[in-house]
């Protein structure tokens, strides 16, 4: 286990930026800022313009850490407390889950909750509970 520092101001600032980006994407392109939907649509676009907006939004997201480095002089921390096997298993399950569930933290958790969508509220509560149980089981029962 890796201890992390409590960062309320940086996290609140990050959340506000995520919110501003979500509002701006709706205002400009009329789209939900959901990582799952934007990513999945990149591989089966309905047209070139459908592909291009997704591609540039994802490119912007990937450039995010580089801009942070430009201002702070260091890359944002990415500390991976789990094995490669767990990354692969977890990644695959996340992919299956978000496809059937129709969204993830950004789509359901931020945009859907902000729209007070019943599906998104139920999805968010469900995945939060499942994550709490999983982390407890993995860390404190199996002791990984």
């Amino acid at each position: 286990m890796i201890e992390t520092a409590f960062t309320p101001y940086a996290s609140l600032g990050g959340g506000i930026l995520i919110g501003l980006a979500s509002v701006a994407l709706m205002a400009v392109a009329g789209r939900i800022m959901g990582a799952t939907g934007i990513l999945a649509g990149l591989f089966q676009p309905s047209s070139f313009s459908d592909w291009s907006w997704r591609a540039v939004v994802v490119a912007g997201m990937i450039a995010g850490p580089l801009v942070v480095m430009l201002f702070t002089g260091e890359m944002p921390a990415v500390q991976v407390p789990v094995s490669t096997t767990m990354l692969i298993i977890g990644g695959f399950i996340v992919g299956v889950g978000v496809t059937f569930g129709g969204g993830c933290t950004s789509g359901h958790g931020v945009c859907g909750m902000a729209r007070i969508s019943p599906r998104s509220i139920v999805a968010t509560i469900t995945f939060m509970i499942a994550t709490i149980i999983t982390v407890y089981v993995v860390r404190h029962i199996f002791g990984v």
Partner: protein
Amino acid sequence: MRLILLFLIGLVFGVGISIGGMANPAKVVNFFDFAGTWDPSLIFVMAGAVVVTFIGYRFVLKRPAPIMDVKFYLPTRRDLDLPLIAGSAAFGVGWGIAGFCPGGALPALGTGRSEVFIFVGALLAGIFTAKFLQSALAKRASAQA
């Protein structure tokens, strides 16, 4: 012009995810680890993002259409079904195992860390497998109908 603006929107999202701590699996897993190394920071990410989006959407969705498109592409379903709940539960299990969610992992790719590429590769494999299963299930349902 439109694409430059959309790139900047993605950039703001990526910066927000990065400084908020969502791109850091250790922070994510600690947020959910009440019995261990609990770090409540991510509640501030969620609260900031939802409040700003809630207020912003009130104004934006009053307009007849977005600034640079013909209509708003909003999900219309309001029913609760098994794929929504089972899929979301599975997402939570995977998130707890790996510590990355899709919105956290995409910006994290920019750090160039190999673990992020491994996670995103597995994520895409999961998405394609699920899409294949969905179309197989839809075919079977229409064959029975």
